[in-house]
């Protein structure tokens, strides 16, 4: 199954999803398609008209362009997702993936899809990490049934 992950570029979640036999949906692949595309003059510093249209599908015109731009990348992944895993309060959720409003909208869009969803806290100790890995494993194994 295709599993959408938040943070969308997490090494740990990407690896765990793949390790337990599912396909992670991450922004690395979505960005990869963009930066390797010859249609854009200097990727990823500019966007195409199609990107703007895609963004408008997920957020209104009054929403800041940064959020719409991000949703143009995240949105198709959410549409494609058959399950999702959120890891809240990851310490590296700043910079490009740190837009709080985008992340709120992403969560809303995922919840609207009513797909299986696992919500976790980023672990801070080995004991917490054990619980996180166990929960991810159980969730992903349950999806196969």
């Amino acid at each position, binding site marked *: 199954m295709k599993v959408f992950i938040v*943070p969308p*570029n*997490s*090494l*740990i979640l*990407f*690896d*765990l999803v*793949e*390790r337990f036999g599912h396909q992670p949906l*991450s*922004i*690395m*692949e*979505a*960005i*990869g*398609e*963009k*930066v*390797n595309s010859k249609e854009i003059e200097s*990727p990823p510093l500019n966007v195409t008209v199609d990107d703007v249209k895609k963004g408008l599908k997920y957020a209104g015109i009054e929403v800041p362009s940064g959020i719409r731009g991000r949703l143009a990348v995240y949105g198709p992944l959410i549409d494609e997702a058959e399950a999702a895993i959120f890891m809240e309060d990851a*310490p*590296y959720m700043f*910079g*490009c*993936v740190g837009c709080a409003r985008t992340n709120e909208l992403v969560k809303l869009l995922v919840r609207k899809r009513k797909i299986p969803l696992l919500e976790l806290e980023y*672990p801070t*100790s*080995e*004991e*917490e*990490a*054990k*619980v*996180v*890995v*166990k929960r991810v*494993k159980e969730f992903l194994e349950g999806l196969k049934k």
Partner: protein
Amino acid sequence: MSQKSETRYIVIAPSSSITPDQITRFIHTMAVDVQIKETCFGVIVQGERQVVANVLTEVRKLDPNRLFSKVRGYPIGDGRRCRAEHGSRPGFTQLEKEWKDLPMFEVGLNCANDGKICELPKRKKLPISEMKRICEEVCEQ
């Protein structure tokens, strides 16, 4: 780079005794058509999607729970990201943090593979006497 091509990070957990050089040499001995870049945290492999997947499966066998992998958007040596060409690396702080935390997840994976019961101890209620002591302490300040 074609759409069938894939670039992947293979990240070695700090608790592993494997070095990026060992992985690079191991992949070279597989004699497959991939491009490899050795980095401080592991290696970056680029090639046909299926070939890269096969390489990853074999490399993982070296140290299954201490080698982690994810796809990379940019190809190896891309001028927009490669430091040799003054490219920026905005994602490196994240990769660094996750790399530092990999030993935690290794313990988690070992635990999950062994089927051990992993539960956090339940939070107990604070006794009233303790609560009273804290209140008095704060009020005195």
